[in-house]
């Protein structure tokens, strides 16, 4: 009995091995019937059901990954959208400038605003063009919207422009509708007025303000702004109407500089649609 147990024990592993291998090979070679397929499907269903909670983990991982992917994609699309919007705005702006340039008979030099060295305080902007591009002191600076200012400092490759904001000079202007002339002055934060108007002159809110061309700095009939307020004050020297310029000085990107102001050419310019006061 003991001997047979000793004989049997070392062989047990081989017996188990041979039985399981035989069983596996039998399944491998003959286990292709519909019953086996059905059993495989059923057992697979049971395992799949048991694995459902783990599937939640997998789905959560998938959701986390998908969320990250979507976030990255949203960021990319947002960036792309901003670039496209910027390109569209730039396109519109450049089209307007091109149209303005074609209509304007003056020799213009386009320039890019590269800095605002003192816009909030002194109202100055820096351009990327200078003397070598034909700019001179007092060259007028314009945009399709209207008058910006004039060049106050110029080097070979850059120039400083004093805008109407915080300006230390007056601009000779007139009211388009009534042909009343005066001097446009900056009198405070975002406030301009026309001084030199006689009392009782015909000035109304909404009147268009254009340059007269006097002083040979600014061309004639350049759009400047619109009258926004007419006060009851009738003191000519202090001004009694407020003007809002068309140009938004804080968001300038491209401007034009009149390189060779020619009085004869300026006189009959039609690019504002206005006439001689």
């Amino acid at each position, binding site marked *: 009995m003991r001997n047979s147990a000793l004989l049997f024990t070392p062989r047990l592993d081989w017996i*188990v091995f041979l039985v399981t291998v035989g069983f*596996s090979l039998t*399944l*491998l070679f003959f*286990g*292709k019937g519909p019953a086996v397929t059905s059993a495989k499907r059923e*057992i*697979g269903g049971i395992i799949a059901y048991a*694995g459902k909670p783990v599937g939640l983990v997998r789905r959560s*991982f998938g959701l986390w990954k998908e969320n990250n992917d979507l976030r990255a994609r949203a960021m990319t699309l947002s960036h792309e959208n901003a670039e496209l919007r910027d390109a569209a705005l730039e396109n519109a702006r450049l089209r307007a400038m091109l149209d303005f340039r074609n209509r304007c008979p003056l020799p213009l030099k386009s320039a890019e605003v590269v800095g605002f060295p003192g816009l909030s305080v002194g109202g100055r902007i820096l351009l990327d063009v200078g003397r070598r591009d034909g700019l001179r002191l007092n060259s007028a600076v314009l945009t399709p919207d209207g008058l910006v200012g004039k060049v106050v400092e110029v080097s070979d490759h850059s120039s400083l422009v004093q805008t109407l904001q915080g300006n230390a000079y007056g601009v000779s202007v007139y009211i388009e509708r009534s042909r009343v002339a005066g001097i446009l002055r900056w009198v405070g934060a975002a406030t301009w007025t026309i001084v030199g108007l006689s009392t009782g002159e015909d000035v109304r809110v909404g009147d268009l303000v254009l340059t007269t061309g006097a002083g040979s700095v600014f061309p004639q009939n350049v759009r400047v702004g619109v009258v926004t307020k007419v006060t009851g004050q009738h003191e000519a020297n202090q001004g009694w109407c407020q003007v809002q310029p068309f140009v938004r000085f804080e968001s300038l990107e491209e401007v034009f500089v009149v390189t060779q102001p020619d009085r004869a050419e300026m006189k009959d310019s039609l690019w504002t649609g206005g006439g001689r006061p």
Partner: protein
Amino acid sequence: MSYLTPALIALVLLILDASLGGLLTLGPVRPSLTLPFVVYVGLLRGAVPGTLFGAALGLATDILGALPLGATSFAYCAVGFACGKLWHEGAFRILWPWGTFLFAGAAFSELVAHYLVSRGTGLALGPLLLVSGLPGALYTTVLGLLWFLSPLHRVRGT
């Protein structure tokens, strides 16, 4: 000798392999989470448990997988038996036998699986083995070694 704990672990590994195994897939290479356990049982408990667990886990893997029924069962029971016959518990405490047996078992299992795939599809066995068989065996071995080095691995008596 209680077989309940290993059986439960095997079931959990089977479910994890079926449900989360896809997350570990790298290109055409997918590791096996069940094969290291067969090697573990074979080394730790001997040839008979190794063979039986190998056959059972292989059969379950076949039921859930795409291979013909009996293919993985045959490979796993052979691996479990070989591990049980050639080694024993004491040596399991050392890293290199574990890694060696694991890689040999994984390579054999991949060989059987890829042989059947090449027979079924008509593709050459060599390239198939090189592209996914051996990398799969290496992947399984690396995961097994990581488990061995991790705090999850505790040998009785240590």
